[in-house]
């Protein structure tokens, strides 16, 4: 059984203030000075990749787990961590172009990899915070003609060829038993944090080579729709602060600001 988890390294945008969101003339926002992190939905996916692998072992199923990212040098440290967590393959696909708003390229790159390295289970996050495109898993699904299960919040192996996926949709919770190969798109899962490798595992496994996958068929091309503007959103309100504290603050809030509003409800 082959498990592939796709992940993205993004800037930790919570570190930016409103005034940092100014686009340059080529419609890019500079986030290079901000600390990086694994996209939170993908981090869930990577943890599930490890857990499914453990479940496969307990079912005496051979399994191989791989982690793949499309990015540059900033991905290196994370791939080493995934090696230390005993991912069998930590793979990097390089791309110099800005693909923030080009999920098509990312999707095609992943699909090219999978076409050469068949997978049974592909796990991807639903979106990443920069582009917010919400598209890459669907693009991969369409190119590979592999079905997709969306908004997954939990995953368990049922057997060699099937997975049980818990899905949240419209506030309802469903359980699907799904035939593989399939793509599982992570939503808001309670399992949200990736394990931390031990120092021993970092020394033993962390130094294994990272694999580089060269794209042959995938070119940075046009997206379906053209980005024409980026404008920062101003969200200021009156920002009044009650002058007092404790019980007196609540009294002031009620008398000065709330009474009339509550009377009208």
């Amino acid at each position: 059984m082959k498990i592939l988890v796709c992940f993205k390294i993004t800037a930790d945008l919570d570190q930016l203030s409103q005034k940092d969101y100014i686009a340059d003339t080529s419609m890019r926002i500079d986030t290079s000075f901000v600390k990086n992190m694994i996209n939170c939905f993908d981090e869930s996916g990577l943890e599930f990749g490890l857990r499914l692998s453990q479940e496969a072992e307990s079912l005496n199923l051979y399994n191989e787990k791989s982690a793949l990212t499309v990015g540059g040098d900033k991905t290196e440290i994370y791939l080493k961590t995934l090696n230390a967590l005993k991912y069998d393959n930590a793979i990097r696909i390089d791309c110099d172009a800005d693909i923030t708003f080009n999920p098509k390229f990312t999707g095609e790159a992943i699909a090219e990899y999978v076409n050469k390295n068949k997978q049974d289970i592909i796990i991807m996050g639903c979106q990443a915070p920069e582009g917010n495109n919400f598209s890459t898993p669907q693009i991969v699904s369409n190119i590979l003609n592999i079905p997709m299960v969306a908004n997954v919040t939990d995953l368990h192996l049922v057997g060699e060829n099937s997975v049980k996926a818990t899905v949240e949709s419209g506030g309802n919770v469903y359980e699907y038993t799904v035939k593989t190969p399939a793509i599982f798109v992570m939503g808001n899962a309670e399992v949200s944090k990736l394990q931390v490798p031990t120092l021993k595992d970092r020394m033993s496994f962390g130094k294994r080579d990272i694999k580089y996958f060269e794209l042959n068929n995938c070119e940075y091309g046009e997206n379906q729709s053209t980005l024409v503007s980026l404008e920062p959103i101003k969200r200021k309100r009156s920002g009044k602060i009650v002058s007092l504290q404790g019980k007196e603050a609540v009294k002031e809030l009620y008398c000065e600001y709330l009474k009339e509003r509550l009377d009208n409800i």
Partner: protein
Amino acid sequence: MKILIVMQVYDEFSLLDNIKKYNSILNFSFMENVKTECAVFSEYNFSTNILEKYIQNKVYFRAIDCIIPEIIKNDIENIQNKENYDGIIILESSMSNYVAVLLGEKLKYNYVTNVVDFYRNENGMYFKRFSYNNNVYSTFEIKNKPFIVSLKMIKNSAIKNNIDIPNIIEIENKNIPDFIIDKNIIKRADIKENSDILIVAGKGVKDKKSVEKIRQFAISKKFLFGVTRPVAMNGWGKLGEIVGVSGGIYSPKICITIGVSGSAAFYVGIENSDYIISVNSNDKAPIIDMSDVSIIDDYENVIDDLFNIFKIC
């Protein structure tokens, strides 16, 4: 231009919500001189008389066990092959983005997800959505039809009665994709209160017990209750209670945030509120500038008195 509007209905609340959003969209300038028809996919068992009362022209209807993007994509593809719409607009739901992109890729149409506003002029069609963790509006141009968009955060509009009764066509294809061996619903959504007041607990509410206290107060007053994503990920709140871009979007008359720092991803969930009150011990928290009024204090010092105000409502 002829456009198909797609609704996904889970329960009574989402049926009414979809109809209000449908009415709202019809008032967009983009929709001037546009003929609209609808496709409704519903897990909720309701009489199609409701559709006759509120939806114009033609309605394709399918009662469905589970709203799965693959099923909706296949059905809309069949409808599109017959009707040749210039555009397909998918109203907001948990699955709308998935449907839009699967359909767009399959049919090789231009698409944009999570659209919050759209307009057109002599140069083209323009679709605006959030990017950079909801701190930036990005506007995309689509020059050629057909197009597909999935919507997000469109404000509701009052429901209007129809003059003419539409033609309701039941979708005959009842297949479930064969990659699903088995399916069960294991939990239904909590019934949403129709309240003008929303209370949200953030990570500044220091523990699960305190979140529960706030939740129980909201339930006792039939207020809406939500949590921020970090609170839910900590296991202090339910995933279905998340407020923000990856959860619920609300527009109450009054929103009270307690211990919420105010990330853009969260704020999207409350920014249509008429009035926002925040309680936070940090006067530099982003939520302060984005609120109408704030109390700068530890929530434990004010929460009981704050609840007492609302007990008399």
